[in-house]
């Protein structure tokens, strides 16, 4: 009788542990999605502000053209090319705002300030997203999770080469 009892409890504990692991992984997948949605939203806002800056008085015709082009590119890029497109936008903004101290009109100043605040937020959002992705990948590699296919049909989260994209 004792043998059965031990066997039964072992199965029960394994079952509990598997459900614990599945919940843990599910939560992480959820976090990858929400942190990406958050980051995506912030980047879209950045592109919108960039276009506004391009149309303002700060931008000379050449940089306005460059800025509009890179902003559109960032908005329309596929996930694969997104990182490169965002870097392009950062570069274009960097060239234009190199001498941001000389800006005097209040409308342009508030635009630049909004961009600064947004950049700080984007940095945090990137850190949150990367953390979620690396955690998820780590947990997905666990033996039990692979053997029992606890990840189900959830796609493998993509590591996003965002480091240094926004500064």
């Amino acid at each position: 009788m004792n043998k059965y009892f031990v066997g039964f409890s072992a199965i029960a504990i394994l079952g509990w542990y598997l459900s614990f692991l599945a919940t843990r992984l599910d939560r992480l997948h959820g976090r990858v999605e929400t942190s990406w949605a958050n980051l995506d939203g912030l980047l879209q806002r950045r592109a919108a502000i960039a276009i506004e800056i391009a149309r303002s008085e700060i931008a000379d015709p050449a940089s306005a053209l460059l800025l509009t082009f890179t902003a559109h590119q960032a908005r329309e890029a596929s996930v694969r090319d997104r990182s490169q497109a965002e870097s392009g936008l950062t570069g274009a903004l960097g060239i234009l705002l190199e001498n941001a101290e000389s800006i005097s009109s209040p409308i342009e100043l508030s635009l630049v300030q909004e961009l600064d605040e947004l950049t700080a937020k984007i940095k945090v959002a990137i850190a949150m997203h990367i953390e979620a992705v690396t955690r998820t990948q780590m947990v997905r590699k666990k033996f039990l999770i692979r053997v029992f296919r606890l990840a189900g049909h959830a796609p493998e989260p993509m590591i996003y080469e965002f480091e240094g994209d926004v500064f």
Partner: protein
Amino acid sequence: MPLGKKRIGIVCPYGWDTPGGVQSHVRDLAEYLIAQGHTVSVLAPAINEDALPEYVTSAGRPISIPYNGAVARILFGPVVFARVKSWISNGNFDLLHLHEPAIPSISLLACWAAEGPLVGTFHAASTRQKIAFAITPFIEPVIEKLTARIAVSEAARETLQIHLDTDAVVVPNGIYAKRYANAQVDERWSGNTIGFIGRFEEPRKGLSILIDALPRIITAIPDVRVIVAGPGNPADVLEEMQPELRNRFTFLGRISEQEKANFMSSVAIYVAPNTGGESFGIILAEALAGGASVLASDIPAFDSLLGHGKYGTLFQSESSADLSSKAIELFGNPSKRKELALKGSEYAKSFDWDVVAESIYDIYEMAMVGSTGVTLSSDNRAWNKLLGRNS
């Protein structure tokens, strides 16, 4: 704040009635958020439940446990766990902010029990917690639930990276810089004075290092005086030191926040000889805001707060010889002192609550994206749903 007013729950692991860095951080943050119109509830252990502010819920009496070089008053156990759970389910929170969730405390329990947007702030900076390596496998799945992590300093962030292998965003502790901007110089404390604030009986605060350094400082600066503020019994300290040093010391006892601001503007040098266990060093930020020139030990937290010596002078930790020579140098060079103080008070503006709370709230907003609020994880379990159970 575009997302409107939120219901925020904050968990403080240490006893609310005991003074400490984490507690005052939680208090200031809660009061700032309430002033912004949010609904805030703080869960903390407390000895005297009648003396609590309206927004604090007591989790029970804390127990004293030696931890990280000091005695920590914390709390855990099954009864407390039930209390934490009922606080979470009654609170209807949009977000939970857990302080120091990696130590056995109500923060860890709350992190275990809750599901939804969770933000954790890590205060401790210590590379000596060997035990952390042993408990990491248990802590990891719990810490993993945090949507966003905040470290109060670069040192705390490094500790987190080493022990728990996770990254964090650095948001410093806050001070009310405005209070320091209109501080008055108090004649009683000015002149060739050295200031010290803290629980001076605790060895890790390092008052004894300052006492050992004093004879050498006296030979160079004959009229030097030491002004000590903070709770404790001065008789014990005075008894142990050489008789000729006693009349150099003035003990003020506990002082008010405004007096503290005046103190920082009055003393010639503010000395922080702490030997460790310090996570952030809020007192140094306050000293800088008050316009004091700071001389601090080179422990990681102070080193990073002072910008590796850019905004204050650092001496080799636990070395009274180095402390005395750096102090003599500072006393002999008033223009350098003035320059450091000027740079320091400008830099201290970045620790103002207006700046700090705004960055914390930005993180809250990001953590709340796409969420419907905090729930108990036990509510989400499949068998509870099957049984129709609702707690």
